[in-house]
């Protein structure tokens, strides 16, 4: 496939070139089918694709590293500065080790997992300098560690270097990872989704650091990601991968604004954007196919429509939260939350990790009963804790968890998982339950064939659909979605968002959509509550909050949203 794509004309000699790279599992199943790309000094190449497309495998191959169970079956990787520009995959392991962290370094996806938790950050940076014999003395290496910490915008005092990873925030941890990668002045940098877990403000800072350093030191970067908005911000060139093959490559402008391959177009159309419409001509907006909401006229109409309910009963709010507080010891998690949610309304609860958004949604669902304050459903105060609530109240509020990989019991079939809420009410026979399960699966666009399959056979998106079906099976009035798309690829995220909107229009249920991703706002919610340090700092209709943010934090988030 890669051969059919025309190589862009190169002016300088590439620092690294991968040619026809083939990697297979040890049992013989090929994962990369001949991938080729080149990296230019001072330029960043983005390797785009969804999980399972082989992009990380290709990135690690550039360092001559293959994960357990994978082996190199063909192709070459040439790195400038290694003898006569030889194939590094031919080198013995000891030689390849000397390249890693020295001439070519790696920035991992999740710094929380990739920094050694039992070593101070100073020592971890020193270590990479030591093993590559950087400088002439211990003194030189200490000076370099200080220098590189300053370069990534961190404090470089001795006391700061004595900190452990858990004493830093996510953004700081990632910058330590970047400092470690830059420490030995590498020629090539492989970045594996380095900003995935970070909020947009921190992401912007990290991206800026990377771009600056790469440019200043003439480092060639390979940026692995599935987020096209980030690609637009950092990359000079883009390679799009689909199941182990390169389907499109070219300059960033060319790939993002004139995508030729169908898959690239699909990926682009799946990127949520803040404005709710693409600046780029031909690309479809994900909610456009959605019949319930007309995007051109905006969500404001939808809110207004909702504010004129048909019957008097519907005029009352479905959910009211008043003075909700929760603290663990001296640690105040929630400091007095008040809001209400109308019938059929969808509200986004926006906040970074640690803002208390998940705790709040768990309190509402009764999964956390340590709170004080009042949660009212249909005007009746709910007891804290699901055990103290009636079966009917429990059925009214349903919860969908972040990771469909851990929220479904791997030993149960889809039918067994989805019918659990029905078993709990205990009024239906086995046959009736199966019919209801089938209806719910139908609602989430999964057919009868899924009934007896197990989560292991399903993709992430299908699993999340099953989890949503389980929440729907009792026809709830309120669906609490806790970061339901965070563990999914962008294209799958789009289909899940689409599904949730459709379901909401079909069933008229209310929805509380908890997320850290402000870009989803216009695609999912009529109102936004921005949560910071356990308080709602900004609240209003989506349009209002996005156009006239009241709080500094919201303004900062909005300023840092990457867009295509």
């Amino acid at each position: 496939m890669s051969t059919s794509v025309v190589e862009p004309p190169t002016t300088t000699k590439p620092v690294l070139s991968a040619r026809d790279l083939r990697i297979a599992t040890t049992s013989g199943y090929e994962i990369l089918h001949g991938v080729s790309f080149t990296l230019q000094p001072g330029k960043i190449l983005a390797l785009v694709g969804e999980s399972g497309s082989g992009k990380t495998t290709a990135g690690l191959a550039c360092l001559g590293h293959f994960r357990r169970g994978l082996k190199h079956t063909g192709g070459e990787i040439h790195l400038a500065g290694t003898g006569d520009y030889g194939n590094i995959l031919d080198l013995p392991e000891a030689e390849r080790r000397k390249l890693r962290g020295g001439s070519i370094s790696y920035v991992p996806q999740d710094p929380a997992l990739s920094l050694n938790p039992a070593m101070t950050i100073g020592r971890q940076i020193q270590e990479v300098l030591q093993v590559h014999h950087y400088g002439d003395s211990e003194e030189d290496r200490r000076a370099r560690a200080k220098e590189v910490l300053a370069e990534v915008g961190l404090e470089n005092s001795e006391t700061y270097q004595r900190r452990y990873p858990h004493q830093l925030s996510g953004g700081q941890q990632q910058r330590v990872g970047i400092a470690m990668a830059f420490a030995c002045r590498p020629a090539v940098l492989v970045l594996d989704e380095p900003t995935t877990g970070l909020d947009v403000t921190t992401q912007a800072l990290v991206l800026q650091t990377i771009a600056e350093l790469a440019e200043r030191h003439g480092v060639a970067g390979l940026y692995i990601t599935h987020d096209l908005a980030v690609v637009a911000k950092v990359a000079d060139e883009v390679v799009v991968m689909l199941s182990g093959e390169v389907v499109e490559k070219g300059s960033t402008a060319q790939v993002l604004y004139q995508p030729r391959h169908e898959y690239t177009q699909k990926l682009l159309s799946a990127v949520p954007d803040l404005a709710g419409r693409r600046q780029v001509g031909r690309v479809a907006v994900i909610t456009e196919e959605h019949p319930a909401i007309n995007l051109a006229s905006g969500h404001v109409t939808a809110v207004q429509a909702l504010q004129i309910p048909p019957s008097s009963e519907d005029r009352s709010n479905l959910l009211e939260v008043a003075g909700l507080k929760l603290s663990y010891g001296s640690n105040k998690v929630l400091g007095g939350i008040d809001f209400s949610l109308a019938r059929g309304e969808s509200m986004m609860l926006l906040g970074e990790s640690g803002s208390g958004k998940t705790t709040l949604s768990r309190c509402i669902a009764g999964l956390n009963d340590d709170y004080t304050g009042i949660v009212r459903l249909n005007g009746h105060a709910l007891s804290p804790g699901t055990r103290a609530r009636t079966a009917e109240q429990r059925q009214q509020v349903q919860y969908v968890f972040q990771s469909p990989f851990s929220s479904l019991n791997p030993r149960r079939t889809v039918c067994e998982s989805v019918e659990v809420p029905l078993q709990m009410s205990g009024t239906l026979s086995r046959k009736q339950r199966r019919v209801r399960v089938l209806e719910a699966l139908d609602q989430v666009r999964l057919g009868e064939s899924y009934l007896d399959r197990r989560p292991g056979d399903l993709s992430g998106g299908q699993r999340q659909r099953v989890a949503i079906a389980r929440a729907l099976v009792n026809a709830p009035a309120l669906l609490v979605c806790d970061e339901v798309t965070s563990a999914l690829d962008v294209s799958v995220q789009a289909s899940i968002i689409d599904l949730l909107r459709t379901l909401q229009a079909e069933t008229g249920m209310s929805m509380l959509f908890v997320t850290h991703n402000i870009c989803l706002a216009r695609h999912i919610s009529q109102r936004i509550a921005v949560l910071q340090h356990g308080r709602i700092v900004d609240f209003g209709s989506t349009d209002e909050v996005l156009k006239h943010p009241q709080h500094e934090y919201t303004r900062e988030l909005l300023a840092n949203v990457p867009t295509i």
Partner: protein
Amino acid sequence: MTHLILRRLATSVLILLAVSLLVFVATLLLPGDPAQAILGQQATPERLAALREQMNLNDPIWQRYLSWLGDLTVGDFGVSAASGGPVIALLGERIGASLVLLVAAASISIPVGLLVGTYSALHRGRTGDHITTGASLVLAALPEFVIGIWLITVFSTTIFPILPSVTMAPPGEAVWNYPSQLVLPALTLVLVVTPYITRMMRATMLEVLDSGYVEMARLKGVPERQVIVRHALPHALSPVAQVIAIQLAWMAGGVVVVEFLFRYPGIGQALVDAVANRDVQVAQALSILIAAVYIVVNLLADMVGILTNPKLRTGGSR
């Protein structure tokens, strides 16, 4: 960190108190009268009454418990009913002998277990790994007396008559003067304990080897030996320390069977004798002692956990 350790210490003291209460109540429930046991069936009622008075057996139970506990805290374990001498003098030698056995077994099984487990993890899926996991599974399935008897059969009967099957140190002489007699009992304990340490070490090591920071260390170009020693081992050790603690504690109690098997003059023998002779004071002292070993060893394992985890060490402050 100090706060955490102090809390652990306080809990340990509380547990020890609870154990002392249990031991005391349990010995109360033992059939028979200690005074009768000391004086024998022919004792006159007057003498029995006098002895009861002397041993404070007529006091209310809580008062007896408190005075016993008070004596314990100053190291007074009371007077042996069987020999008439102080318990501490009777047990001193036995405790020493058992300690020799435990220390010998522990100092072999811990390093061997850690090394073999690490080797096994590093050679995952290869022949060496299959052999060690298979062997450790078989050994873990065998009870200590089976291993002991098997060792005796092989090494001290007709097959290889090279080692003594029982301990026969002349009274008053220390066991460690006859090292060949120590081999079989110590080896039995080693063979019982090592498989658990090996298996646990292999399991945690495998998990750690698959972790992000080990991969990162390799991608930093750190030499493999340093990756294992500096990045992998420290994280694998803390869970293994818990298993080692349980194994050491088991040895303190499980030594009873092994000592009985080899007629080894340690606390296990002493406990068996004490129960047979209704020697309440000795049985109480030994039970408390073994419980204390359990608690201390677990406390040590917790400390290892705290020391290898900077999150606990630094109190989680950001």
